[in-house]
């Protein structure tokens, strides 16, 4: 019988294999579903690709600057009501940076394509 545990562990295995393959191939690894953490005062990147924020879930330390870069050939925006953050329309290869000075959870979205959503957790 296939339990959710087995599915999970299979998934982990597959992810592990993919990770190894990626490391062997010399590619940086970005997982869609694994929160990435970044140390304080640093920069971290979110790629906007195929109408998705990648990674969509991100955990950073207070003071981290997050830079979104749009690589789609359609403009997108990065808007968070809670974080009082609003980019202009980002055309292809345009970037937008925002420094998170408060802790908390900040959901954001693209105001042009609101089905595009992301989340930043800012920790101490």
């Amino acid at each position, binding site marked *: 019988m296939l339990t959710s545990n087995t599915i999970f562990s299979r998934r982990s295995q597959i992810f592990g294999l993919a990770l190894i393959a990626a490391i062997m191939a010399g590619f940086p690894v970005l997982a869609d579903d694994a929160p990435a953490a970044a140390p304080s005062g640093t920069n971290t990147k979110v790629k906007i690709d*195929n*109408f*998705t924020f990648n990674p969509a879930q991100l955990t950073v330390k207070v003071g981290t600057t997050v830079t979104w870069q749009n690589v*789609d*050939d*359609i*403009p997108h925006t990065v*808007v968070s009501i809670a974080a009082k953050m609003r980019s*202009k*329309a980002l*055309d*292809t290869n345009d970037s937008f940076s925002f420094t998170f000075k408060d802790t908390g959870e900040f*959901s*954001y*979205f693209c*105001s*042009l*394509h*609101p*089905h595009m*959503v992301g989340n930043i957790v800012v920790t101490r």
Partner: protein
Amino acid sequence: MSDFDKSVPPQLDADGVDRRGFLECMTWAGTGMLWTLAGGLPSAVTMTKALAATPNTPFTFLQISDSHIGFDKAANPDARATLREAIAKIKALPMKPSFMIHTGDISHLSKDNEFDDAAEIIKEAGIPVFYVPGEHDLLDEGQGQSYLKRFAPQSKGAGWFSFDSQGIHYIGLVNVVNLQAGGLGNLGTEQLEWVKKDVADLSASTPIVVFAHIPLWTVYPEWGWGTVDGAEALSYLKRFGSVTVLNGHIHQVMQKVEGRVAFHTARSTAFPQPAPGTAPSPGPQTVPAGDLRKYLGIATIDFVRSSEPLAIIDRPLAG
């Protein structure tokens, strides 16, 4: 399928409502749909057919959409050129449409020169144009002020308005403002209230044409292709015998009939987008360079010959 000049007599229900039972639409390969009111019945014909036919039609209007002036990526390096071609097709029509509606995304990034060029090219058609904005038209500093000033100075709110022409009531709506995270297109309570009032005094036999950028019906929510309160707007139109809803945004033809309401989306003049769920994202679809105009409709004769006209028939008596 009937031909362009076929007319179907209006049918009366037991309740005496004129069902205007027969709506027919054949899409010309995307540059525009030509709408005609023949014998009191709205119908759309391919522009190719219109070019060839010499119909005795009292009234026509035209829809174009998603010209995206300023777009220059692989899917179409020159959106200005394809809009020019579309306008040239319109100018070549033997019967001049009374006006056209543009269902938004006039520009790609709301830049002054994009708006200027679009207006300049579209003006060549020599007929009045009624615009509603797409999300790409509200990207200026003033979040739509530039669009409103240029394209809808007489409108209300974020750019909505209505008008009457030869017995038809037209309603232009804006569903690209104040979009909420995770959501779809959005009309908002102020606009909904206005729609309700706008149609309150109309006779139920008045044909209604509603147009907006994002589809007012749910095409594919995973890609945001729908309007969260579109059904509420349409609920105010329930008592009307003929409602035609014209949208853009999805850069492809999509049609549906629900009771007396016929829904249509028009192609773009700039670039195609994939069919729902057939690609990782709804981004511009790059087709072989020689094929682009088939998707935009410029190579209209081939497109029409190679496929049956898409036809939507509104049959409220059967529903």
